[in-house]
């Protein structure tokens, strides 16, 4: 089971975090800090896996963003790399060549897509088509609703 997934930038800024185990906020921050430092210190050609406490860390860099997953001893490292890749593909399809800014400004969408791919730390749906279909259905529901916020937003912060 995946315990958590972190997305962070080359500058070490956390962009997205998803925890599948309950930890106090303080511990989450500590883990995040530790892992960001460890991974940023590694050289490009190095192995994508490392042992960390009793977990295995799998990470990969896409452009300016690092994707990092913590999995348990039983879990398959190579396939975790491909979960990351599938997530990147989904983001890419949804945003149309995704970049770090898309994830910053649409973090809620990034969460919604992730929730379709993984649930409770396990792979839920590996078919790209099916995930995109689910997200499109969500967007459709939204569009049917009146965009009343449009007026309030002008002038309001």
């Amino acid at each position, binding site marked *: 089971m995946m315990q958590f997934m972190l997305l962070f930038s080359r500058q070490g800024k956390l962009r997205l975090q998803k925890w599948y185990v309950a930890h106090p906020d303080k511990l989450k921050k500590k883990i995040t800090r530790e892992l960001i430092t460890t991974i940023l210190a590694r050289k490009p050609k190095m192995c994508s896996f490392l042992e960390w406490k009793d977990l295995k860390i799998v990470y990969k860099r896409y452009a300016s963003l690092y994707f990092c997953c913590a999995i348990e001893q039983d879990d398959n490292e190579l*396939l975790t790399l491909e979960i990351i890749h599938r997530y990147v593909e989904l983001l890419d399809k949804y945003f149309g060549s995704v970049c770090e800014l898309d994830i910053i400004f649409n973090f*809620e969408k990034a969460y*919604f897509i992730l929730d379709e791919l993984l649930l409770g730390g396990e792979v*839920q749906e*590996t078919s790209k088509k099916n995930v995109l279909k689910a997200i499109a259905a969500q967007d459709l529901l939204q*569009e049917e609703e009146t965009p009343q*916020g449009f007026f309030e937003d002008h002038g*309001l912060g």
Partner: protein
Amino acid sequence: MPAVRGDGMRGLAVFISDIRNCKSKEAEVKRINKELANIRSKFKGDKTLDGYQKKKYVCKLLFIFLLGHDIDFGHMEAVNLLSSNKYSEKQIGYLFISVLVNTNSELIKLIIQSIKNDLASRNPIHVNLALQCIANIGSQEMAEAFRNEIPKLLVSGDTMDVVKQSAALCLLRLFRTSPEIIPGGEWTSRIIHLLNDQHLGVVTAATSLIDALVKKNPEEYKGCVPLAVSRLSRIVTSSYTDLQDYTYYFVPAPWLSVKLLRLLQNYTPPTEDPGVRGRLNECLETILNKAQEPPKSKKVQHSNAKNAVLFEAINLIIHNDSEANLLVRACNQLGQFLSNRETNLRYLALESMCHLATSEFSHEAVKKHQEVVILSMKMEKDVSVRQQAVDLLYAMCDKTNAEEIVQEMLNYLETADYSIREEMVLKVAILAEKYATDFTWYVDVILNLIRIAGDYVSEEVWYRVIQIVINRDEVQGYAAKTVFEALQAPACHENMVKVGGYILGEFGNLIAGDQRSSPQVQFQLLHSKYHLCSPMTRALLLSTYIKFINLFPEIRTQIQEVFKQDSNLRSADAELQQRASEYLQLSIIASTDVLATVLEEMPAFPERESSILAVLKKKKPGRVPESEIKEGKSPTPASNHNNGVNTVNTAQDLLGLSTPPTSQPSGNTGVLLDVLGDVYNNKPNTINSLQDLTAHNPKKFVCKNNGVLFENDLIQIGVKSEFRQNLGRLGLFYGNKTASPLQNFLPSLVWSEEHSVKLNVQMKPVESVLEAGAQIQQTINAECIDDYIDSPSVIVAFVYNNVPQKITIKLPLTLNKFFEPTEMNGESFFARWKNLANVNQQKSQKIFKATTPMDVQTARQKLIGFGMQLLDGIDPNPDNFVCAGIIHMRTQQVGCLLRLEPNRNAQMYRLTVRSSKESVSVEVCNLLSDQF
């Protein structure tokens, strides 16, 4: 600002831009505080806030939280959004709740209500949103609230596939929090049959659920094996076009394949049905064959997915450990990967080979790759890969290749990364001992270790070499000669001085015939290092010197001069001072005969398992290959090399002393024994309060609930306790034994804040006067929330005859009190036992000496009193005890298995505790190991 998708919230985007434009951390904090104030006032004042605005503000709060700031409001508004009839508002509400899980019980009730409504919705998108929220939070309350609905959703024929997928994983999540929510009976087969579902997404999700259920109850779910095998068979034989979108870069359903292969690793190879077994082997062969086919794509995704399946298949082959042919093929395949250009593959191949090396079928096949592995250790750029290579060399080492591997490891040690040196030293020391046929080689290796990496040679390592030299006559002369030569190096490590000092003190006479190493030369050589050494080493050298006086009477005056030096006789270090003066007196007063008796050669040490192994296990749990762990598993571990009989607590240091080794003389001279009092020894653990030592023994109450906790001339304190699930109630009875009242009577609880979040203890107040001869009762309620260590204390303060008194007692509230005994049969016990073997278990195993007579009835009584179910007739060895129980806590329940193996000959026990949570195993092990 990039385009915002869906129905964007412009206000949110503007806010995010603002934050990004902040030039400094201070500016950012300022901007955030301004926004928080704004949102707070909106939420407070503006009653007309519509759904959209609420959503926008909640989303901003979420963003602020994700930046790392604390959010202490907005939860109510988020909960309001849940019942919005607009999907986008609902969705943001759920997101906020999922990210900022709140334990506020009132809100949880509202949240659960909203989820209930959405679960009942006809729109699958709403249902899934609700399921995702349950899976994200997964609390006990959720488990309680939805234990009926979710299984129904999962197996009902009306449920849409997308909902089934979410329901399966949602149920898995809740099962992890409260294992009891899974309905048994007919549900079992309905859940298993999800493996046959048409929709591969459903099967993928269901396989994860089944894997977890199997781990808990392998027997009940046994029916999944043939289904999993045939599903797997269909996948591996399908062409990549068959599975459409479930094919990932030309690999058919890699995720499902890996999960199925994983699921099968919960069982031994299917034997009842040869057909199933044959099909499974065919699958495994097909996967191995496919690995040899040319890649269908150059993309790394293709090779990753393909190899993920391959590695998992190899894991299953290793797990089954029954098909020699498959094991050897797996090994050859991994051998090819060792020279692949992908670092990831080389890393995994080394790791996987480590497991293969421990199988008798493939050990030889692994050895063929020795050269490549040695190259990996030397040449890999990434230290984690080099580490894997070291581990593999260690695992593949046996009698035939030990010399070469040890030599290569020694060579590499000179340039090895600091981070792995200590572990390598341990490994070299273990291999050299284990496979030594000629102990001169062993001595050379250890001295080389000290030379090359002296700083990383721990006490265990040099204690061990001394122990072995003392126990083996044939190597003593060689050892003396070699250490003498090693000490001649201009700069030598302090550990070398220690070993040299000890060995020359014992066996210096064996080389004294040679003029080049005459007594005089030996002494001067050692003494030339003296002033550079730490007090501990100096103390050891002083002992060597007094031994020299016995061996070489001709240098006696010279040595006495050294004892007399101010720096020794008046040393600031009490131990040195004492040794110098006692040894000096001994050398003056004692006759030659007495000296010879007192300073006789050390007797042989009892043979023991190397304690270095224990250190390695502790250092790198899970990294010590299986075979080593197995050694420790049998009730009387075969001792490593020769006719050893006893095994002693492996965690003990191996000379059995923490004082410098020479200080224990072999003769029974009382004077000297006193002189050499254990200054380096740790003080024995004292119980919290001295005055209670005689009257209060908290250990007794680990295995019983009622009795007298404390008694002296003034007061008697008794306890009665009962426990249900994670709740406990204690009655403390205070009896005044005197003829006058005890005034200012005040019991107070000692249980830190940090502990109370795990075990909440409430104490009812009592009256402040305890009348003469009277007894009062005080009730204490406890709730176990999470696992904890130790137990709370109560300080009972009162005034008797104007003298204040204070008594500290430990409450019998140890973690084991929350055990519920669990009955199970042998098969499921051992299946679980085995499943839990992956979990770090070094710390939850103890080998200890029996402190009370090893009586079967007493042991049984204690185990039953401990709270677990004693399972009879399960362990193949009738002397062993096995138990099972569940510890109830508010946050979770932890199933716990235990095995206690008595060894009557050695008067020892070995206790092993396994559970899914390491901290629980460790505490249970600690609590119980004190009881025998």
